């Protein structure tokens, strides 16, 4: 069942992540500063790809969850879990970077903008998803419950994305995924695209790593469960009151 070299693929993701990170940084500093926000606009090239890749991650979680419910194959469960973990990481990044940005442009760490709130809530939803996974050790029961939540939780994505349209708020309205005009300079758009591609590379690399890790963990559990593992019942022995004192 296990391949000859189970670790053979585990090096390249590290390189991929490193390179993608460097390229993103270089690209953001090569790009011309925004007319309005100046140097601060460079935050955009991390902030936006992180948010978008969080969407992608949770989308993949949804698809893998549905696939698990369909096929009942634990492979899909591992993919869903790994993707959710990365998604939480990216959402956290969006939040933290966004807050730093907010402090420097709006003067406050946080404000009751719909998108901000909903992003925070999306973060909590998937933290809940991860917590749910930790609450059972029966692999199948865990997979099933997590899958149902994984499918339902996806509503958070459109909610966050369209929140700016639904309410008026401080936050930037969609500037790219909006059908009509693109109100960014071409260099900025290109840099953004490069950053998004690099984040995607990071995502894929992390996925490979995490899915591998999940599989490994499962194997460790199963291999430790040899036929020699004492059964739960062996903890109970015949009582002895120790003499008849």
């Amino acid at each position, binding site marked *: 069942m296990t391949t000859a070299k189970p670790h053979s693929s585990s090096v390249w993701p590290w390189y991929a992540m490193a390179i993608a990170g460097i390229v993103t940084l270089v690209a953001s500093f090569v790009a011309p500063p925004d007319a309005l926000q100046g140097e601060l606009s460079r935050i955009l090239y991390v902030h936006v790809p992180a948010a978008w890749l969080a969407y992608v991650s949770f989308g993949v979680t949804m698809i893998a969850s549905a696939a698990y419910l369909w096929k009942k194959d634990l492979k899909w469960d591992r993919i869903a879990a790994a993707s959710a973990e990365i998604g939480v990481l990216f959402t956290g990044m969006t939040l933290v970077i966004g807050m730093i940005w907010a402090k420097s442009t709006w003067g406050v760490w946080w404000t009751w903008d719909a998108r901000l709130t909903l992003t925070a809530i999306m973060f909590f939803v998937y933290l809940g998803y991860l917590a749910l996974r930790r609450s059972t050790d*029966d692999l199948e029961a865990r997979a099933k419950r997590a899958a149902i939540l994984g499918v339902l939780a996806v509503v958070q994505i459109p909610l966050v994305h369209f929140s700016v349209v639904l309410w008026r708020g401080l936050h930037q309205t969609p500037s790219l995924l909006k059908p009509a005009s693109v109100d960014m300079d071409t260099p900025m758009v290109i840099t953004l695209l490069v950053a998004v591609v690099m984040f995607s590379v990071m995502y894929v690399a992390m996925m490979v790593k995490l899915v591998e890790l999940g599989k490994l963990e499962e194997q460790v*559990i199963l291999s430790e*469960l040899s036929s020699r*593992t*004492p*059964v*739960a*019942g*062996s903890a*109970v022995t015949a009582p002895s009151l120790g003499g008849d004192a």
Partner: protein
Amino acid sequence: MAARHRYPAEVSEAIAIVSLSGVAVRAGAVPILRDVNLSVHPGEVVGIFGANGAGKTTLLRLVATMTRPSEGSGTVFGTDMNSPDRFEVRSRIGYIGHTPGWYPELTLAENMAFVAAAMGIDAAKVGSCLDAVGLAGAKDRRADRCSHGMQRRAEFARVLLTEPDLLLLDEPHSALDADAVDLVDGLVKRTVERGGAAVLVSHDHARVESLAHRILRIKEGTIT
């Protein structure tokens, strides 16, 4: 009446009611049962002995489809234990566990009526079943105001009500007074005569030995 309960007579000899092969149950990484093979045929009464913590209750709940096997496979009334349709055979199983599961705020009769309604059994039967276990006078008493033994008796009334083809009794004699212990024998015999089977877990060797056709022992998580 209750035709769905009847095991088809013509195949009753051939098909096992319960059949487990190579079943393991784990709680996380802790093995509780392993490599359990068991088949129970119509008309059989099987007694199960074993030390505290050996896994007897786990085995009964497994057979009742309330716990799923971590490994191996099994069928009850021909239905796979892992199938999502396993709920369909549950109405043919009568399980009495360590602690009664009545809703505390409902009376015994209301609890029973719920079970009857859920299974499409005539509600009029509730009274006579409670009567049969000697609880006619307490039928309108809230379950949490009934003594432990009364609640246990009521569980036997439930089994009378649902007429299961497979009885799974976990220490059925405990908490029953001298008058009521015979309920166990009576129920087991009724079930067997209908072509059903019974599995009894008990520490009361004498009582079970007189009742069972076959005695199994659980040790180290396996049936020996």
